[in-house]
């Protein structure tokens, strides 16, 4: 019974890691392929945030399984700090994206229209 629970937990961890890597790869391909600055940030700002949060959550589950009994208190408190890191990424990453995009808009970077040359 315990082995079954451990196996299910590890499978869930692997699924979280795979989903996170998928989103990060999609964001990177969007950063390469899309035609102008605003669309590139549109791709990376959301995909990267979700991918990183998924990967860190998977590692948090793995930490709870692997270090749960008999570790020091500083090691046992790592999942709480990982939750803080997840909250921080959820706030900070879209804020940074918004700041760069607003700076570009205020200094006159033109959005791409259909038929323009790809920048």
């Amino acid at each position, binding site marked *: 019974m315990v082995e079954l629970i451990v196996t299910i937990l*590890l499978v869930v*961890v*692997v699924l979280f*890691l795979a989903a*996170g*890597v998928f989103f*990060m*790869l999609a*964001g*990177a*391909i969007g*950063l*390469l392929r899309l035609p102008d*600055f605003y669309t*590139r*940030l549109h791709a*990376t700002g959301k995909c*990267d945030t979700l*991918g*990183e949060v998924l*990967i*860190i959550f998977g*590692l948090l589950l*793995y*930490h709870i399984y*692997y*270090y749960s009994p008999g570790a020091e208190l*500083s*090691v046992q408190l*790592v999942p709480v*700090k*990982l939750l*803080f*890191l997840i909250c*921080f*990424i959820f706030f*900070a*990453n879209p*804020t*940074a*994206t918004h*700041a*760069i995009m*607003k*700076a*570009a808009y*205020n*200094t006159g*970077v033109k959005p791409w229209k259909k038929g323009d040359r790809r*920048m």
Partner: protein
Amino acid sequence: MIEPDMLTIFLATALLIVVTIILALYRATIGPEVYNRVAAVNVIGTKTIVLLVIIGYIFERPLFFDISLLYALLNFIGTLAFAKYLERGEVWSS
């Protein structure tokens, strides 16, 4: 000891993150304007956070995670300062 299966999975995840960092580095190199470069550098920084956490679990030192927390703060502040500098021409508004 860490199980070999989970070690393989963590190594594969870290390798794929490095691949995405290389793709973003290509965008930071070719450009074409300064804003694309800043955005690509910001993306590289946020990917490095996850890479540091995974490295901590590969080497079985989960307290490596503190370095990634510090790196997240530095990356965020640096990106905000760069955006303000590009927008106004100065970091502090007088």
